């Protein structure tokens, strides 16, 4: 690596962090440099230390963590030894930060106008009118309609994507030289994620701001950055130009990350001639609106007459952005939400005619492995509970089946007596899958089953899922906003928007020849991968207007 040049904006040298109380090392001697105007990426999974490392760069470490060595120089000035006054001048004015969670990074009890103005009052000498002009101009640039109205509005009146735009506006108002974006779009769905990223890149390019982009999502980071470092367990394992790193990865961990990216699965033949196993016809779901003294409750329609069929052994993916109604449809079919109109049939009979049979044969895997398992039950008890109502199975047989199922999802018997909090996210999701398949259901509903997982763990869980599906041949409704995952597992894809189905077809047809503009928009958020023999990939991004 070359020494700091005139152009170097931020220079991190051998930075090490440790837990203050135990001396446990969390970041180990990392070094890199960011030049002015550059977009630089840090990629790593949870626990890799990437967030702590970036927090150290603006001296915002949590009290339990301390710097144990190294230096961070911003424009040649040492950050780690700055006093509070100098730090305050650095943060915001010179280095802006966009955090992951747009729900909590804006103050809910302050208007947008007040929050945006705060930084300007602190760091500039502008008059009230000038501040207002500048805020309105910035809100327009980040794509907020009616910026005058937005000034007096509160954060909860905006969607997650809009809030992240506002957050970006508040940071860019001060024209910082460096923008640190820590998982800026992870909480957003794929389409909005792309919009926010494009906006961020356009804005920072126009202002000449350098960006430090931190994420677990390697393709997303690769799309926008010129150089990347890959972190694993507190160390930088690989460092290089983005294309080189992708096409010829050196370190096994980078290779593992790349090979964990979803790929298109083999096309399978599904017998579509027989009557569908699950058939939902003209489903309408209304959510009751809020009642007030003067107004009668007006219902909000979440699904406008949606019909889907799922055949024996078929994996049907339901995709769409947030608010598209895909989760509502899944929950309605599962019987967790009551339909206002329409009929659901299972194996040729009305579902409502025999709930017991339906419950035996239809199970569900939920999105959040942290909330879908009862924290007070052991892993074995959780899986056994799924067998509680199964007839013709005595207690010993149930226990045996539960243990076998745990084994099948890759959790040995030594996990049986543990509690959910002792397990990682991926292991918990394995337990959730074990619980769902223990009954040998004919039909499985999986609502974003891998969205909360790290890239490498996601790949393992998807493999497990495909293996089990092949083995037991259950039908599956797979709900996801991530088309990459869908491309790997689905036989057929159904695209939803605003409570309606807008396109449906075989996976290859949808991915190769999308008809609807919205489908193309969804597809433009994920790369097509071209694996090479060196363990690397070439990413190709689909254009939105490409047919």
């Amino acid at each position, binding site marked *: 690596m070359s020494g700091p040049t005139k152009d170097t904006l931020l220079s991190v040298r051998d930075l090490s962090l440790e837990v203050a109380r135990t001396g446990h090392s969390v970041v180990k001697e990392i070094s890199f440099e960011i030049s002015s105007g550059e977009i630089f990426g840090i990629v790593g999974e949870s626990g890799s230390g990437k967030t702590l490392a970036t927090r150290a760069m603006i001296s915002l470490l949590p009290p339990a963590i301390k710097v144990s060595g190294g230096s961070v120089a911003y424009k040649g000035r040492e950050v780690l030894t700055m006093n509070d006054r100098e730090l305050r001048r650095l943060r915001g004015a010179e280095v802006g930060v966009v955090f992951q969670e747009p729900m909590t990074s804006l103050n809910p009890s302050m208007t947008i106008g007040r929050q945006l103005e705060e930084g300007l009052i602190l760091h500039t000498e502008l008059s009230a009118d000038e501040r207002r002009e500048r805020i309105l101009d910035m809100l327009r640039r980040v794509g907020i309609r009616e910026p005058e109205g937005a000034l007096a509005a509160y954060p909860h009146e905006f969607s997650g994507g809009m809030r992240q735009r506002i957050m970006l506006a508040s940071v860019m108002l001060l024209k910082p030289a460096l923008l640190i974006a820590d998982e800026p779009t992870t909480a957003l769905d794929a389409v909005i994620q792309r919009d926010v990223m494009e906006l961020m890149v356009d804005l920072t390019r126009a202002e000449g701001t350098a960006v430090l982009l931190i994420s677990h999502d390697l393709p997303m980071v690769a799309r926008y950055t010129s150089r990347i470092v890959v972190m694993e367990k507190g160390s930088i394992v690989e460092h290089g130009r983005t294309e080189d790193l992708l096409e010829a990865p050196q370190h096994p961990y980078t290779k593992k990350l790349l090979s964990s990216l979803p790929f298109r699965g083999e096309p399978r033949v599904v017998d579509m001639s027989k009557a569908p196993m699950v058939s939902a016809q003209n489903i309408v779901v209304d959510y009751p609106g809020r009642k007030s003294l003067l107004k009668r409750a007006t219902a909000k329609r979440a699904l406008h007459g949606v019909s889907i069929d799922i055949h024996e052994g078929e994996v049907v993916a339901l995709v769409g952005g947030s608010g598209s109604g895909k989760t509502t449809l899944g929950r309605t079919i599962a019987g967790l939400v009551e339909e206002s109109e329409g009929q659901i049939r299972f194996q040729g009979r009305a579902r409502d005619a025999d709930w017991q049979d339906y419950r035996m044969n239809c199970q569900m895997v939920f999105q959040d492995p942290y909330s879908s398992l009862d924290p007070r039950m052991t892993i074995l008890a959780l899986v056994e509970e799924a067998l509680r109502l199964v007839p013709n199975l005595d207690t010993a047989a149930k226990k045996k089946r539960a243990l076998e199922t745990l084994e099948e999802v890759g959790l040995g018997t030594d996990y049986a007596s543990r509690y959910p909090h002792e397990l990682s996210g991926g292991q918990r999701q394995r337990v*959730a899958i074990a619980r769902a398949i223990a009954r040998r259901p004919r039909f499985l509903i999986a609502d974003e089953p891998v969205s909360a997982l790290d890239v490498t763990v996601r790949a393992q869980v998807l493999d497990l899922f495909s293996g089990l599906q092949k083995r037991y041949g259950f039908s599956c409704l797979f709900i996801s906003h991530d088309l990459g995952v869908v491309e790997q597992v689905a036989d057929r894809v159904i695209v939803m928007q605003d409570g309606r189905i807008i396109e449906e077809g075989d996976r290859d047809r949808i991915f190769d020849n999308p008809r609807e503009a919205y489908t193309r928009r969804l597809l433009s958020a994920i790369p097509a991968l071209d694996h090479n023999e060196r363990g690397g990939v070439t990413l190709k991004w689909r254009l939105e207007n490409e047919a």
Partner: protein
Amino acid sequence: MKKFNLNGLIGGILIAALVIVAGIGLVWTPFDPMKLSFTARLAPPSAIHLLGTDEFGRDVLSRLMIGARASVWIGFLTVAFATICGTLIGLVSGYARGWVDGVIMAVNNALLAFPGILLALGLLAVFGANQYGIIFALGIAYTPSMARVVRGAVLSLREREFIEASRVMGNGELYTMFRHILPNCLAPITVLATSMFGWAILSESALSFLGLGVPPPAPTWGNMLAAGRPLIQQAVWLGLFPGLCITLTLLGINLLGDALRDRLDPRMRGLK
């Protein structure tokens, strides 16, 4: 880990001591706690009367031992009553929601708006002042706060995905309520129940003090404290020792309750 052990241990020792003393009091006391002795009126603590005597010459230690039984029994039954009723009401209210919740919570809030001791006073006027009247009255007075806490916990729990998972498995509402929701409410229930035990002993003392408690000459810590008040200038031990007993019992119960809550929670158990 170490701290939790120590606190739990102190609490355990205090409560064990209390139970042992109350138990011994059933079969043996140094003196007959009811026996009057005009030669030993208001005797200060000495080798014969370890904790002194009261204005009728009755041995304070013996009366405290007998009183322990009444106080602890009242506290225990009151808390049991309020916890069982309050938990059931809170569970049903939070799980059913809708109009059931509306009605139950309206009544509950009306009761909560009443100071507990005032409510107990009113109820005692109806049921008559005796040991079981007090338990019943205090139990009813404490039920609303338990119901409220449990309902709050249920409301947040029922949105969690494992409750939906239970429904998808086809489990009945009652099963889900008792297998998944109730165990996860245990932490707030234990915390409230232990502090309630303290309130109950204090309220019983207050009611006895007002003359509505267990009627004399039967001793409780509360009526002993009350009886010692006018004589505090001449015989400080009359008020001091019952007060000390109440304080130490409350301390023990609170320490033990905290330790119990941590112990019952699998998430706290594995922490090192």
